[in-house]
């Protein structure tokens, strides 16, 4: 015991001795360490989350105080888009707008099939047999024999392997794009692409690269940039799909895309092409097959053609056509196809009959083209308004040559021109856009639509009336 006590004392002495003999820096370091530990012990604990600090009372107060915005902002009574033009009766060649009878230059009834007796008879027969609605999506007894027939006919007409129909025109391209292009894929799209394409691209979550309207040099620049990117990361490049999305005849600008150059770029840079032909189907080409026929291109070179049946075919809905390899995929992954009721059979029957008429009378396309060129010529030289669009495009825009400062005032001015024309018997409309939602908002314009039903006198009358209106309003 005593020895242990001595031993202990001895250790203590040794310790004190060691303290004296230790180098100075060692002591200083240890001293600092001890001070630091003492400080840490007495400082407040560091809280990672302040959330746990709120008391129940504070939470209730926060809930009490929070004020949401109103569900919708109030719309001023004079909003230009609030008061619709109400059409009494069918929107055919002679249209009754707001009680006044006018000649229709505003509905996309290019081939005049809206009022066609044969189409109506076919629809009536279908109505007697099938009723109105289909009461189910395509997968659950919503597939009717008329749908299958329409798909076959469209595929045969366009000379592709397969076609798929949708029950709404807007949903066609907006469902087709996200079925193929996913997150991480790259899509090169024209600036002037229509809103449906923009929504399809947004739903796909892919990388969007806009190129200047119809500017192939700009597109090639983007493609080259992508190529250099690919060389840095070849593994990723091997699984990244690329697409170009263009329209045959652009809705917003009335001109066509340079398809032959696009095909060259397609094979050079290995990009697939999706073509939106809503306006060019039934308009361009010798038999109305669209822009591929217009340029004489092999239709298999285009991966997917999408169009809506609401313009030339004067029905409702849309279709996509192409090779089975591509189209069949949409039957399980096209959202607007799988999760929505199918097209009412009477509309499908009307579309089949309209196709029949298109096939039996291939000369209407040339007639339409002649009328478009005539109108295009007539509209030149209106003071204050310039014509935007190709000479053979049936949907033209009339834009102000000089803007008067703000878009709102431009819209008001154009409205006065339109009202002048409406009062004198020509029905026109302004092209409507969602100003805040469009990626590249086109300038305000008046839409002029040419159909086969309009006679030459009516075309001339419309042109001279527009000249008059422009004179009186814009000067």
């Amino acid at each position: 015991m005593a020895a242990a006590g001595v031993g202990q004392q001895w250790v203590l002495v040794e310790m004190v001795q060691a303290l004296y003999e230790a180098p100075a820096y060692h002591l200083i370091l240890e001293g600092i360490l001890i001070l630091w530990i003492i400080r840490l012990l007495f400082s407040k604990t560091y809280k990672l989350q302040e959330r746990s600090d709120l008391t129940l009372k504070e939470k209730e107060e926060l809930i009490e105080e929070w004020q949401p915005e109103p569900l919708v902002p109030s719309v001023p009574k004079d909003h230009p888009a609030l008061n619709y033009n109400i059409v009494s009766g069918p929107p055919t060649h002679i249209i009754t707008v707001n009680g006044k009878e006018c000649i229709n230059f505003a509905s996309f009834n290019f081939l005049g099939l809206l009022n066609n007796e044969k189409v109506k008879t076919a629809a009536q027969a279908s109505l007697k047999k099938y009723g109105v609605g289909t009461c189910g999506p395509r997968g659950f007894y919503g597939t009717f024999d008329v749908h299958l027939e329409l798909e076959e006919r469209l595929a045969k007409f366009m000379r592709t392997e397969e076609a798929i129909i949708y029950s709404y025109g807007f949903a066609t391209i907006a469902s087709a794009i996200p079925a193929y292009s996913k997150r991480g894929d790259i899509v090169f799209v024209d600036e002037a692409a229509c809103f449906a394409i923009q929504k399809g691209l947004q739903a796909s979550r892919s990388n969007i690269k806009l190129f200047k309207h119809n500017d192939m040099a700009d597109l090639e620049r983007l493609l080259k940039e992508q190529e250099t990117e690919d060389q840095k990361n070849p593994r990723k490049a091997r699984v990244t799909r690329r697409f170009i999305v263009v329209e045959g005849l652009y809705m917003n600008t009335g001109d066509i895309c340079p398809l032959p150059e696009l095909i060259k770029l397609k094979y050079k840079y290995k990009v697939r092409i999706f073509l939106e032909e809503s306006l060019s189907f039934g308009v361009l080409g010798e038999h109305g097959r669209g822009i591929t026929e217009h340029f004489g291109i092999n239709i298999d070179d285009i991966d997917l053609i999408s169009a809506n049946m609401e313009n030339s075919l004067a029905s409702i809905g849309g279709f996509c056509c192409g090779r089975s390899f591509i189209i069949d995929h949409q039957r399980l992954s096209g959202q607007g196809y799988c999760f929505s009721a199918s097209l009412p059979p009477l509309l499908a029957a009307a579309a089949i009959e309209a196709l029949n008429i298109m096939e039996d009378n291939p000369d209407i396309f040339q007639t339409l083209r002649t009328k478009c060129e005539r109108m295009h010529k007539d509209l030149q030289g209106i003071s204050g308004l310039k014509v935007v669009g190709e000479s053979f495009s049936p949907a033209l825009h009339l834009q102000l040559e000089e803007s008067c400062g703000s878009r709102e005032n431009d819209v008001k001015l154009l409205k006065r021109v339109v009202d002048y024309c409406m009062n004198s018997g020509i029905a026109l409309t302004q092209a409507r856009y969602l100003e805040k939602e469009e990626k590249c908002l086109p300038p305000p314009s008046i839409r002029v639509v040419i159909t086969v039903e309009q006679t030459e006198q009516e075309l001339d009358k419309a042109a001279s009336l527009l000249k008059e209106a422009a004179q009186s309003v814009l000067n």
Partner: protein
Amino acid sequence: MANPSAVCNGHLHHHHHHQKQNNLLKCGLSKKNGITKGMKKNGVSNGTPYKKTFIEHFEQAPMYVAVFTFVGFAVGTIFGYLRDFMRAWGLEKRNIATERAQQKDFVPLYQDFENFYTRNLYLRIRDNWNRPICSVPGPQFDLMERVTDDYNWTFRFTGRTIKNVINMGSYNYLGFAETDVNALKTVTIELEKYGTGVCSTRQEMGTLDKHVELEKLVATFLGVEDAMVFGMGFATNSMNIPALVGKGCLILSDELNHTSLVLGARLSGATIRIFKHNNMQSLEKLLRDAIIYGQPRTHRAWRKIIILVEGIYSMEGSIVRLPEIVSLKNKYKAYLYLDEAHSIGAVGATGRGVVEYFGMSPDDIDVLMGTFTKSFGAAGGYIAGKKGLVDFLRTHSHSAVYATSMCPPVAEQIIRAMKCLMGLDGTTQGLQRVRQLEKNTRYFRRKLHEMGFIIYGNDDSPVVPLLLYMPGKIGAFARRMLERNIGVVVVGFPATPITESRARFCVSAAHTREMLDTLLLLNCEEFG
């Protein structure tokens, strides 16, 4: 096959915690525990928000069923790999379409594994979907006979039709899918007058007097200030939700919402949070957290909070707990968007939907949305509510600016169906249809219960999912039913959870007692 005694061994599974809910609602609810099927009742008295009993069933299957289901999928997967291997090595024929020769060196359009499920599992039973019909989709229809020579890779039509198949698949709740000449008289007249197309958008030259008439009628039918109609039900959701909410807003969406609601929510750019299906505690927790903590990271207050729910959920057959949601929404100042695609016309004493079913006023709901495809036998959708809301949609909805308006004969069909429902055509036919649907629903569900099948959903919902569980049964059930002249809809993964494959029956007011009895008898014989 399904074993009725299996039901008695089943685990009781309440879809929501009953006790907690009691505390929240501060009412004395009783919990009946004598019935083995796991029914849940909310008491009628003591001032609960529910004016009548709300009974929903979501029974869980016995353990061995779940095991067999997984085994079934595993076997299918193994065979799938085997088949793919054989195809890759040329031992088996490749039947699928392939890429063009000129485009072989492009990046492949589809990844191989993406299509694995489609190629190997779906393809085997593909003949049960996309069955083409060639008559009106009424209570009975005619199917086109379709055979396959190469195990479902391709089909060909024999040219024969299978006549008078009982239709348990179409959404024809009130039986308005009919070809009776008298019923369709006005539609025929309007078709002759207007044709089939409109060729313009609502804001340009596409608003016809028919649309104005229809919108006024819809507003009167629902008891709201104003309504707006659109050409497609799916598009109504996907194009209007982005107009109502945007960045900085919060969307609280039910787990089992339809694809159109999910797409609309995604396109809007708002933050989306999901609450458990029909679970009010989950919703309340999300609401509280959202208001207290604000937006993630910046903690700014949310601009607005909107709750997306459906009236009847089409895969489950459950009805939304509307009174509780409305009280939550009022307490936390959120907005409610109610999608009545399946419930408008199908529930409620006069067919006005879940709002009437729960005895509430349409002013409680901020945005009433619905479709005309199901109960009205037409196509299209509507949004109704206060005038300010509808005016805003007229100016800012994507559909009004860029999409073609509804076609006039379809609008006339909706008008005549609605007038019939409201009694404006001078008959009580509308009310009779609603009553008949109610009777048929209750009878059908009761009988299936008595036979011991596992049915999901609310007792009053005309959508009746019957659980099959095992993947092998999906194909077998549908094919056997077709052999006996009954057309049913079967659904599996990915529309439902992997272990809960089901057959879904849609009861219609046009079904007669005999048709339902035939179906029930067959069910019993084959599978009971």
